[in-house]
């Protein structure tokens, strides 16, 4: 077994993972000269780096959110964006190669395979194993060290089939033709996936959007994801929205904003909805257990399938996944990264 844990070329620091020979950071939580970014969620992709290496889709998302293509607001650091396609290998210098592999989390999300001195390390970023019409599916790749997320790393988290949740949503809609169903969903990824799944389930009526979702939906469409007819809530009357689905970011659910809607039934699409009290805390009436993360079985199955020498766990319920590794005689350690899970789920 390779001796991996001691002094190593991959070093977890509180604000990100440092790849020492190439002096590059993975998903750093603060501005660095050179960063590899797994996907566009704010807890992984921060603005202000000197050079950002990511998939073209992730770079487009970061551009939309941080306008990284131009100079930053202070005008100090000229930004360089380095796009890398899935499957393409980039030499980072210092004898380190990086390859981007689909992670199935959101549009453009990637696992990053790092190779150095004959050793393979994969950093999953966030990932899921379920089919998602809005992004490329997760691909299993062999490695020596598997650095995994653990957002839903507790055995209570098993996500039901998304078709069940869509059926729940559509039957609530049908049962209350004078109201609307307001679905809280994260602006990047979840909202577009829910819309695409609704279309796949045969729901072709216009879907109304909170203004904060508009640009990201448009970006998805530009990348070939068809979302059907979308309308902005602000351009329509209460009467027009009766019997419709309205999508909004979670922060808008209990906001004054929702008063413009026709007696909304509050729904929320999130893996946390599996826990009743979590739904109650948010005042959710119709919980939809839909997650863009791997559930407990998928996390553990993936570790077994990848079968690495060693598993490192970055963020989430790392204690339980660590315990699972111990029970299955797998070498594992938890990394304490700060600032994760602030925007996303």
């Amino acid at each position, binding site marked *: 077994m390779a001796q991996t844990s001691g002094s190593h070329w991959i070093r977890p620091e509180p604000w990100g993972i440092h790849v020492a020979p190439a002096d590059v950071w993975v998903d750093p939580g603060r501005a660095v000269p050179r960063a590899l970014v797994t996907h566009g969620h704010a807890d992984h992709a921060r603005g202000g780096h000197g050079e950002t290496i990511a998939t073209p889709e992730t770079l487009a998302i970061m551009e939309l959110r941080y306008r990284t293509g131009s100079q930053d607001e202070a005008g100090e650091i000229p930004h360089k964006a380095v796009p890398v396609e899935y499957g393409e290998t980039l030499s980072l210098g210092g004898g380190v190669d990086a390859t981007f592999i689909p992670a199935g989390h959101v549009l453009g999300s990637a696992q990053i395979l790092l190779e150095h001195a004959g050793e393979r390390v994969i950093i999953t970023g966030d990932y899921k194993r379920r089919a998602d019409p809005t992004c490329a599916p997760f691909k299993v790749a062999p490695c020596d060290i598997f650095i995994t997320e653990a957002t839903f790393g*507790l*055995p*209570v988290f098993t996500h039901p089939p998304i078709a069940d949740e869509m059926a729940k949503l559509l039957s609530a809609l049908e049962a209350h033709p004078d109201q609307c169903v307001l679905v809280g969903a994260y602006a990047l990824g979840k909202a577009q996936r829910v819309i695409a799944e609704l279309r796949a389930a045969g729901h072709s009526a216009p879907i109304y959007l909170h203004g904060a979702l508009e640009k990201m939906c448009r970006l998805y469409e530009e990348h070939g994801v068809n979302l059907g007819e979308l309308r902005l809530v602000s351009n329509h009357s209460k009467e027009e929205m009766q019997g419709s689905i309205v999508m909004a970011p979670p922060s808008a659910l209990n906001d004054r904003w929702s008063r413009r809607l026709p007696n909304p039934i509050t729904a929320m699409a999130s893996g946390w909805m599996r826990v009743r*009290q*979590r739904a*109650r*805390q948010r005042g959710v009436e119709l919980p939809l257990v839909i997650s863009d993360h791997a559930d407990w079985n998928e996390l553990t199955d993936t570790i077994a399938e990848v079968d690495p020498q060693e598993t490192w766990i970055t963020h989430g319920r790392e204690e*339980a996944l660590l315990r699972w590794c111990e*029970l299955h005689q797998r070498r594992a350690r938890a990394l304490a990264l700060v600032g994760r899970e602030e925007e996303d789920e």
Partner: protein
Amino acid sequence: MKDFATLLDTLVYTTSRNRKLALIAEYLRETPDPDRGWALAALTGELDFPAVKSSTIRNFMKDRVDPVLWTLSRDFVGDTAETASLLWPGGEVDDDPPSVSQVVDQLSALNRNTAPKELPGLLDRLDANGRFALIKMATGGMRIGVSARLAKTAFAQAFDVSVEEVEEYWHALEAPYPDLFAWAADGADPPDVSNTPRFRPFMLAHPLEDTRVDLADFAAEWKWDGIRIQLVRVGGETRLYSRSGDDISATFPELLEVLPIDAVLDGELLVRGNVQGGEQGGAASFNALQQRLGRKTVSKKMLAEFPAFVRLYDALIVEGDDLREYRWTKRRTALEKLMGKLPPSHFDISEIVEARDFDHLAEIREGTRDDAIEGLMLKAKDSPYIAGRKVGYWYKWKRDPLLIDCVLMYAQRGSGKRSSFYSDYTFGCWDGDPDEGAELLPVGKAYSGFTDAELKKLDRLVRQTTLNRFGPVREVERTLVFEVAFDSVHTSKRHKSGLAMRFPRIHRIRWDKPVHEADRIETLRALIRD
């Protein structure tokens, strides 16, 4: 069981009170006897299966799931029933799941030995919602945002009867309440409860806050720091009830033979003490009373050392006369007249506090130093005796709390509404000069007194400053000062500091205050009064 499970599940996600009432009422109308009676008992917290405890569930789950994974899951979810129902291996569900009353029958038949063996078989016959409902029923404590009062109101609404009348019969009847349903649903005669020494819901007070009252219309009494009780004698049999209606007769046997007439009386249970309570009359502090609470049998030594008596506030019924609709002054006169018949060894009357006006009363309240006094009660002279909290009739005006600055040391996740948030805080005071290397010793624990927004901020602080984990408990860096409010402080073996506070709550979060400026143990110890 399916309908009941669906009802519970829907109630969890319903925030509107009217909608909850409608859902429960609809269930009660459409479900046959005795299922609906058992369901009503479950919602009002009246079911009790001594063989099934939360620990029973925990133990057999730990045989099925790795104990560490179970503990981590339970800690995160914050609810044993929900954790177990989520972790239960899903399989083939019974086509014909058991009814609510079949479940009740099976649960009642269990004992401590058979429960761990037979419960799993019962759970196997149900789906995830059914399992959640079953464990909730079996272990009590629904935590679904439905109070007993709400369930009774829904019952009244379902059958168009008055909730006051329901309350009147409630405590004399037992689940599944056939007589109650026969009366309300089918128009039968009201249940005959005349010969049962039953509990009547207490009249309660609102906090006075900024209200000022005119003493021409209000009378003032001390608010005694004991436990509020109701003494009921019917047909020669006496019972003692706590504020929640629990029968605590067995804990205070000395009070069961001393009431010479049939009556329903409202008062404060106190124990005799000679240390304090001087001019207002020999009651010991709450700490002394605590020695007597929660005991099923009482030793002679206890009876001799901490003899209990009742300080009477009000008379509801005296020798068959129901006084509850009369004004307070009239009931007070009846109570004063009654005192002559009661043995002074076990009864006295809560004296009226005389004051010239409201400001004078405020002065008297400020001046009192008696530990058996919690503050003042203000009662409208024309107030009838009405169950619950009716605005404008009774006010409580508590003494200002004591305050001390403590440092956050440990945090634990909360339950129910606060599940998965770190909302239970243990805090400490310095055992000397913090600049000379003194240490913090835990002095108390609090889980209230902050807003939801503050809770989020505190939760984040706990996650970001964790030093150690001991199971569900996180030890945090000493960075935050809480101004803690509490009613009193006593010596205790519970904390290393040897001190325990009564009803501590977070008064203010001092984000600004350096921890070395927090208070010392000796400051807290100086506030002990017993």
